[in-house]
């Protein structure tokens, strides 16, 4: 059973007072496991950075506790927490060389010079910047600065590494490279990584588990596939990838499957949640790539409104009654099953295409 590295217990952070008060974190609870690559994902203002800063010690909590390997670190200032941060703007000290930057934490901890120098060199080699020890941060490219920031944060062997959108300033190619490297680094060092980003692709590719946040609350926590295939509410379904929302009525429940019908008569089935009864109106999230589109034998249940050819896929916007659905079809297998605008089509749904949302 993996140890819990960080336990966030009912944490609330409010800025200001009275009517102008802003609630950045609203009763947030989370568990981050040891040796895990954990991502806080959400749009700007959702509270992910506030939570990260709360773990680092830069924000004091209005309510709740944060436990690091079981110990309440709330009363500890940032310099007493064995947690290091990679800042979004890198925050490399401009008046120090790369080597002095990386060795700063070790110096502050009072390690002797020989040990510090050896560790610094080892860290720089780890991030493949061994030759640049004597340079100043302003002489480095963005990607190099980022690596130095990483080396600096890892040099003191923290128990947890916090990364605040570290890749956002890099260009696409570099970002993709760094994603792979960060993931490898985490596995190599065995340090728990807590990664903050608003880029869902980043989150999905790098993380062991993801916490989707919005409005200061945690919406859902789970692995990448969990979050994608089984979103719990509208926000998560919409934020991760693309989806269609359908309002349906549960006609019938058989075992753990709920049979639903949309207003336009589309029939779908989804996993029945607890307490579901026939006659209940619910919202469904239907992933576009899980909808099949084919030539209808009789009238068909939808009409093609628009299509977009994208090389690898074709996107169809189809209309069923009053509802529009996005359907994604892979242009594979030489199949050129191609529908024109205005064509009547038959939509089919995989059994796991639809998901009943909690809200």
């Amino acid at each position, binding site marked *: 059973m993996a140890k819990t590295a960080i336990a966030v217990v009912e944490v609330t952070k409010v800025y200001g007072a009275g009517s102008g008060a802003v609630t950045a974190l609203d009763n947030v609870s989370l568990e981050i496991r040891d040796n895990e690559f954990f991502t806080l994902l959400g749009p700007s203002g959702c509270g992910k950075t506030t939570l990260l800063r709360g773990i*680092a*010690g*830069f924000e004091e909590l209005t309510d709740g506790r944060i436990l690091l390997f079981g110990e309440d670190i709330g009363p500890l*200032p*940032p*310099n*007493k927490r064995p*947690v*290091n*941060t990679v*800042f979004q*703007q890198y*925050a*490399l*000290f*401009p*008046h120090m060389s790369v080597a002095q930057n990386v060795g*700063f*934490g070790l110096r*502050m*901890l009072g390690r002797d010079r020989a040990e510090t120098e050896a560790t610094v060199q080892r860290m720089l080699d780890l991030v493949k910047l061994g030759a640049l020890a004597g340079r*100043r941060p*302003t002489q480095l490219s963005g990607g190099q600065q980022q690596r130095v920031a990483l080396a*600096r*944060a890892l040099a*003191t062997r923290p128990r947890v590494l916090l990364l605040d959108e570290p890749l956002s300033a890099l260009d696409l190619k570099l970002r993709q490279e760094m994603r792979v490297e960060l993931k490898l680094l985490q596995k190599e060092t065995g340090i728990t990584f807590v990664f903050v980003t608003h880029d869902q692709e980043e989150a999905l590719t790098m993380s062991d588990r993801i916490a989707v946040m919005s409005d200061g609350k945690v919406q859902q926590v789970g692995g990448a596939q969990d979050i994608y295939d089984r979103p719990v509410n509208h926000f998560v379904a919409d934020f991760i990838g693309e989806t269609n929302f359908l309002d349906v009525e549960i006609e019938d429940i058989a075992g753990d499957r709920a049979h639903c019908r949309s207003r336009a008569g589309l029939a779908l089935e989804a996993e029945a949640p607890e307490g579901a009864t026939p006659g209940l109106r619910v919202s469904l999230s239907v992933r576009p790539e899980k909808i099949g589109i084919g030539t209808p034998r009789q009238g068909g249940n939808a009409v093609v409104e628009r299509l977009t050819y994208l090389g690898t896929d074709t996107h169809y916007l189809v209309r069923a009654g009053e509802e529009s659905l996005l359907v994604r079809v892979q242009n594979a297998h030489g199949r050129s099953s191609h529908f024109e605008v205005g064509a009547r089509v038959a939509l089919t749904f995989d059994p796991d295409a639809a998901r009943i949302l909690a809200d």
Partner: protein
Amino acid sequence: MARRTRGEELRRYPGFRGLTFGCLFFLYAPMVVIAVYSFNAIRSITVWGGFSVSWYLKAFSNPAIQKAAMNSLIVASVAATVATVFATCGALALARGRPLRGQEAAFGLINLPLMVPEIISAVASLLFFVAVGIPLGLGSIILAHIVFCIPFAYLPISARLEGVEAYYEEAARDLYADRWKAFRYVLMPLLMPGVISGFILAFIISLDDFIITNFVAGPGATTLPLAIYGMVRTGFTPEINAISTLMLLISTFFVSLSYLVGRRQKGF
């Protein structure tokens, strides 16, 4: 001269360029003239007797002038140092973190000496020293100078501080530096150009001050401006030109230095 673009042509007003040069001429001419005459070997307005620094040597072999210069340096050094320390502390208090209660009032108070006409500050300082029983001498001059040097030191320091992002200190604290070490190893070095710039400014202001010094100086405590003023009373001599030119050069040099140091980019 290159052809003007349409934009430049539209913005041009006839005569404004001339008036600007006129301004600069007006501002610099008197000082240049004095400087020129200070090198005139002959004591004459109308005749040029050749280039000479004899007046400079004569002026500074005068023991009264030497004493005045020494006093000026002592006063300026002490006052500027103390003022810079206090101003740095004040800037750290006001320009960082969430606003304190009464923040604006504190800022207004620190800048008050700039707003009050010097004659009033001079009278006030004099009455204060007399009322409290502080003897008038070099010490009283230093005390009075500290008061008006603080806002002059404060401005470049706080300007520099506002340009230093908060995340540097945060990074330092994240890396196990306590408040003092974060200040000493990270913030202070980044702040240093502003502190130096502020010190130089305060130093010059103290060196150049006349009115307040005149009021609170005791007998025997003369500074250079006071000495020059006394000498002018009895008529112009080339020695006066020499000392004046020297003070002009020193002031100009240090002001430029302060400006350049303050503008150094963070990139070091």
